[in-house]
């Protein structure tokens, strides 16, 4: 596993040439919109209902990475060698790897029933659906979730 150092072909002795690093300042933006609607209804002093609808849309994107001219990096004017003119350092798509674009919508419905002054029984159901419009490392990951849960809450 060699480094990027190479031999200079015009020198009899082994001469390592190291091209070092290059960088470009790049912007990365994320945007997120959230909307929600919740309702609650008191049916009786012992029984309450609640519901929720939520929507989220999020995107993320990086600007294209544009490097400065690297073709003459370590150019040897005497021997006219070891420039990087034969290399292509334009990266047209790596910024796309960071793109995110997904929508999440979820619904929930639940109730609370007061069994006694100090004990409340709860039951909830929730459905969520994620729509992935862009994909990431593992591809499109759209999916949905349905959950029902119940519990006892002690008030003290």
């Amino acid at each position, binding site marked *: *596993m*060699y*480094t*990027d*150092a*190479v031999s*200079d072909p015009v020198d009899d002795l*082994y*001469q*390592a*040439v*190291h*091209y*070092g*690093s*290059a*960088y*470009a*300042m*790049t*912007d*990365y*933006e*994320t*945007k*997120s*919109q*959230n*909307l*929600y*609607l*919740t*309702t*609650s*209804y*008191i*049916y009786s002093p012992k029984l309450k209902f609640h519901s929720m609808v939520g929507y989220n849309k999020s995107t993320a994107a990086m600007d294209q*990475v544009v*490097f400065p001219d*690297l073709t003459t*990096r*370590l150019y040897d004017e005497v021997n006219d060698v*070891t420039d*990087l003119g034969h*290399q292509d*350092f334009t990266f047209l798509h790596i910024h796309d790897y960071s793109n995110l674009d997904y929508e999440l919508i979820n619904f929930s419905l639940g109730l609370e029933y007061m069994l006694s002054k100090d004990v409340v029984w709860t039951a909830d159901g929730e459905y969520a659906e994620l729509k992935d419009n862009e994909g990431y490392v593992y591809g499109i990951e759209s999916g949905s979730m349905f959950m029902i849960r119940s519990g006892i809450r002690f008030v003290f």
Partner: protein
Amino acid sequence: MAGLQADIGKSRVGYQFDYRIFESEAPLTYANYDEAMHPINGSSGAEFSSRLLFDGVAMAAGEYANTEKLSHKVTFKGNAGNSSYGSSIGYSKATNKNNDLSSSAISGSAFYATSLAKLTHLIAKFSVAKLDVDDFYVDLPLFRDGQSGTPQDFDFTRYSSLNRVDLRGSVEIISRLNKKLTASLIAGLRSIDREYYPAEDADATTTLFGQAKIRFRKGLRHSASIKYRFESISNPFTSAKGLFEARGRDILNPVDGTPNIYYWQREAIRYQNITTAPTQAHILDLTSTWRPNNKVNLNFGFKAKYDKNGDLDSLDVSHFSMQPSLAVNVNLDQKWAVSLGGSYGYNKSRGPVAIALFDG
């Protein structure tokens, strides 16, 4: 968790003890490491294997820490005339029982509040914490053991950046200007002196901050606030390794009889501090609530932050974020209540994307 509390004259003394354990029986996650070989012709297995920690084996890649935590805390509060004061001393220790590594913290805090005038108050706060995390020795196989040249020993001691003394202090003055307006000013500092990072003798990260806030209240119908905070940070936490590699001829050469130049040698030619932590930050926070009647209230909020680092040579690292939000809460009657709201979040980060250049 258990505690005791007692009132002694005008003072209150308390003690709290907390103990918790976490154990997991979740199955381990394993990662398969391919057998080392040349990627094209499949040869040189011994050579490539001698450069790797694992090959041709499945290794546990993730394991929950089985932890034990305990803490003690003693608190004290008192009053004297128009002033109140208090302090606390705490000790906590957490141990990963899988490997017997522990972290511990000794902390202390104090506050003092007093009236400077009829409608003006002063609050001073101070805290200090010392965190110690066990270091451990990482014993690695020799690099290229059994191959030509001298094998390299990369064993090292792993120190934690959490080893630190964390010091905080602030003074706040709150004054009620009139029936509608209340103003507050805060000045303070935070110093984090890490024992090992990014270097053993590195200066402490010191944050000086100032904050101004004005609150407006008109009866129960309208309330609003505006807050601005400025932070100036010296020596923000940086990566212990440089972002870039130097370039040139003969800056890397084979060593100790090895036939080639290897990746590990590039560590020696890295330079340029890099961090996402800022040296300056501006933070704005607006809130407003309007209650047109007893059934409806309307809430508006806006937060924004801009920070940048001016200590990174030509690198222009900065961040900007903002989040407006709006919510309406309606009590339709004694049984029905409805809330409707939304928010928008925007974040923009500017930083370097760096690549190592290869000819081939």
